[in-house]
């Protein structure tokens, strides 16, 4: 257990690529932090700087209030789970898990106890004598986790550990990782590009864009109250509805569509109206109208898609509804939203205005 602090860290690769441009955060003891963002935004680089696998160009990283910039990876007391597992192919499962402990000079008996314990916890105790190439993807994933767990490190680092698994296993392991982390109470940093993983795992979430933190906070806070267009569109599945608009004569205008109820918006710039699919519902007095073109039945609920009518360009809307709401294809449907659920963003800067 430990606290981790990033103080304005920067990373410029030798080829000049600026991967991380000044990130600061303070991670509490036992907290589960997720870095989420699109591919190439620099989240792995940040994680690898904490691990000691990349040098820190500027700024510093503290673990338990001790600057570790120049501490070797093995001495940082952090353990990492890699995307492709990175198991030692020439060692058995037991060998893989014991390797880090052996190098730290633990007694054989102690190593054995720890390995057995971790293997039991991860349900890999039957495979301890197998080589990694005799295991399935899911089992390898568990071994990789086991290798990190036995070390009992101060910090766990995960770099997209589930992205090589099939969808079902991914969900299962996600739940298991969360449980394990809760039980062990080890401070963890988890990198993913998958917003569902991010939402479900994180105590706090950092949305990364272009080497910077867009917003950081509890998942639900980011969902309900995104500060930028980027966060609003990155967090949430299905994707938030975005309608390009302008503010004219105290109304939000989008083609022939004029929406009242907005005030204090600048008139001379392009805006984006954002409404989450959960907050739209069919209502004959609805402000928006769509022509239904697709209904996805997910079981408990349905997602209805359609083109927004009267708008200047073809905007697709989506809303979430219950199992038995099944509008006909090509039918017209009015949708209502509460004013408090409408978000307005400055299109060019992405800044949230309402």
């Amino acid at each position, binding site marked *: 257990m430990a606290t981790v602090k990033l103080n304005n860290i920067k990373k410029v690769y030798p080829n000049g690529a600026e991967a991380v441009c000044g990130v600061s955060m303070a991670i509490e003891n036992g907290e589960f932090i997720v870095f989420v963002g699109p591919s190439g935004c620099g989240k792995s680089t940040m994680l690898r700087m904490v691990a000691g696998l990349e040098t820190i160009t500027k700024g510093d990283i503290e673990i338990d209030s001790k600057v570790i910039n120049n501490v070797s*990876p093995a001495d940082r007391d952090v353990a990492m789970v890699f995307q492709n597992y990175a198991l030692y192919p020439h060692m058995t499962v037991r060998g893989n898990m014991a*390797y880090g402990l052996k190098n730290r000079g633990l007694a054989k008996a102690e190593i054995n106890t720890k390995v057995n314990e971790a293997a039991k916890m991860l349900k890999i105790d039957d495979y301890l004598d197998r080589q990694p190439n005799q295991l399935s993807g899911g089992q390898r994933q568990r071994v990789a986790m086991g290798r990190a767990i036995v070390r009992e490190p101060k910090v766990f680092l995960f770099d997209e550990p589930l992205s090589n698994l099939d969808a079902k296993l991914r969900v299962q392991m996600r739940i298991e990782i969360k449980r394990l982390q809760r039980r062990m109470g080890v401070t963890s940093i988890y990198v993913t590009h998958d917003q569902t993983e991010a939402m479900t795992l994180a105590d706090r979430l950092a949305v990364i864009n272009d080497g910077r933190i867009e917003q950081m906070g509890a998942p639900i806070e980011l969902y309900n109250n995104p500060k930028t267009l980027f966060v609003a569109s990155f967090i949430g599945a299905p994707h938030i509805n975005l309608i390009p608009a302008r503010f004219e004569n105290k109304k939000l205008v989008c083609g022939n569509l004029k929406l009242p109820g907005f005030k204090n918006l600048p008139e001379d710039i392009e805006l984006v109206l954002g409404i989450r699919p959960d907050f739209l519902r069919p209502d004959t007095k609805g402000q928006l109208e769509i022509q239904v073109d697709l209904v996805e039945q997910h079981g408990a609920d349905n997602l209805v898609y359609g083109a927004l009518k009267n708008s200047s360009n073809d905007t697709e809307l989506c809303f979430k509804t219950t199992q038995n709401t099944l509008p006909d294809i090509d039918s017209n449907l009015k949708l209502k939203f509460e004013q408090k659920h409408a978000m307005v963003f400055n299109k060019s800067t992405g800044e949230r205005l309402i």
Partner: protein
Amino acid sequence: MKRVQFEHSTIPYLFIAPQIAIIAIFFIWPAGQAIHQSFLLEDAFGLSSQFVWFRNYVDTIGDAAWLQAAWFTTIFSALVTFLSLGIALLLAVKANEVIRGASTYKTTLMWAYAIAPPVAGLMGNLMFHPLIGDLYKFFNAIGWDFNHKLDSFDAGFVVVLIAVWKQVSVNFIFFLSGLQGISKAVNEAALMDCKSPTRRFWTITFPLLAPTTFFLMVINITYAFFETFGIIDTTTGGAPGGSTNTLVYKVFQDGFRGADLGGSSAQSVVLMIIVLALTIIQFRFIERKVHY
């Protein structure tokens, strides 16, 4: 492992036919000839020959000169294999650390590979020439009474040096590509699990290079046995006093210079058996310890 069986067709046989023909003409047929010859004793003029059973073999193995050549071959092969693998591995590990320079190193070291053994031998001859050889002068200048024409240790030193120098390049290329084949993430995982670079090398890198090392060992022993012929022929020619005779070189000398066809055939059959035994040992006992 069970292989997938495709329907039989003659096309694969057509593809391997040229190879089979080459093996038959250049290996099986001469090998058969050698075995046949090894049981014959010819008169001095090659006019008549007589079937003598194993007399050639007994003469060969009982001969002190042959035993000396066998001993030299053992030492020579062990040294050449060990040194050329060791030096190449060290260079490859260092080159692999500087990813940028790796291709420069690669090309530079590759040059030696393109040199034929006799040419390497001739170059060595120049370097060790008593009048113009820089290395000859250098060794004598640092107080080593060096003379490979007279001293058998010095002569052995020359052929080992040239044979190793020539072979390092091949080994280097294979080691380097072996090193680059080790997953980056595995190296990083090791970096977090083990602080000491030496320990990391022996516990992770070296075992993962084992298939490459094994393959190169087979190649290098074969090289030391057979291909160094050209080097020995152009440098020492087996001198002084046959002390740098390898088994292969002795076969050549006895057969072509000494015109003892029966004897040299027997030697080459013995050599064939030794190589066969060595190969079996390598695959049986060492390969088992190699993880692919």
